[in-house]
């Protein structure tokens, strides 16, 4: 069964572009989680993430504007870069997917309030 699937796999398109999209999704998820935590620190980072005030992108959205836009940009840019790197190539999909899954799990974890609130300054 395994050998059949391996043989058939060689007759299909190379998996590089799909691996690129999955890994990019993981990168986008992780970046979102990191930005959520950084925003909790407050100060200049939090002010910077208010893209609605800084760049007029979405009046009243607050720091979520910056967090979401930067996470989506990380997803798209990393996808484009990885796509061109792996275009036409057969990569170790299992390993790439495992990394992508870890990054997505980190994204889920870091967007969970009890986790990202750890980064909030403690009240005096």
């Amino acid at each position, binding site marked *: 069964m395994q050998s059949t699937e391996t043989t058939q796999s060689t007759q299909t398109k190379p998996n590089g572009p799909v691996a690129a999209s999955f890994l990019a999704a993981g990168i986008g998820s992780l970046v979102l989680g990191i930005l959520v935590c950084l925003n909790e620190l407050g100060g200049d980072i939090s002010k910077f993430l208010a893209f609605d005030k800084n760049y007029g992108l979405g009046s009243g959205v607050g720091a979520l504007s910056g967090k979401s836009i930067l996470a989506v940009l990380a997803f798209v840019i990393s996808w484009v870069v990885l796509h061109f790197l792996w275009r036409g190539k057969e990569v170790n999909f299992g390993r790439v997917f495992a990394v992508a899954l870890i990054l*997505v799990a980190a994204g889920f974890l870091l967007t969970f309030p009890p986790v990202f609130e750890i980064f909030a300054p403690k009240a005096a």
Partner: protein
Amino acid sequence: MQLSDRELWALIHGMGLGALFLLAFGGGIAGVWSLRSKLVTPEGLQERTPRLLVGTTVMAVVAWLTVIVGTWIVYPWYRAKPPAGTADLAKFPRSLLLSSPDTAEWHNFGMEWKEHVAFLAPILATAVAFATIYYGAQLVHRGEIRRAILVFFTLAFAAAGVAGLFGALITKAAPVA
């Protein structure tokens, strides 16, 4: 019986786009799951592949529209700050929730989780849609890709499910009106 603009957009966001994504998940996951050579004939594969391509693409587009409408149209109404001295907070849902210890956690936990985790759904659904479009009927021969699609599809559903659940509960406690 009429809806305000805000109620209409909240309805489009939650009951329209969000619910469509969650409802379509069952069909999508079943379609990918059964895309195996031992389960479908070549004729069956030709018949169901276009439906799967359209289905996963529409789900990704719907997921993006859901977070775009939610974040850029409905969310500013939710978090609008009331003018000083405002007694009736009905038009300021975030402030209304935070005004009582009994409801504050709907914002501090529910909304804070929902507004962030929701963005994982379209990102993951886009990767799923791309993989499905890229391989098409060849997915039947790529078990590892098919399994990865199932995992990402399920995670996208989980993210959308959390967002949808808290969206409904928060709307019940403090509707955007």
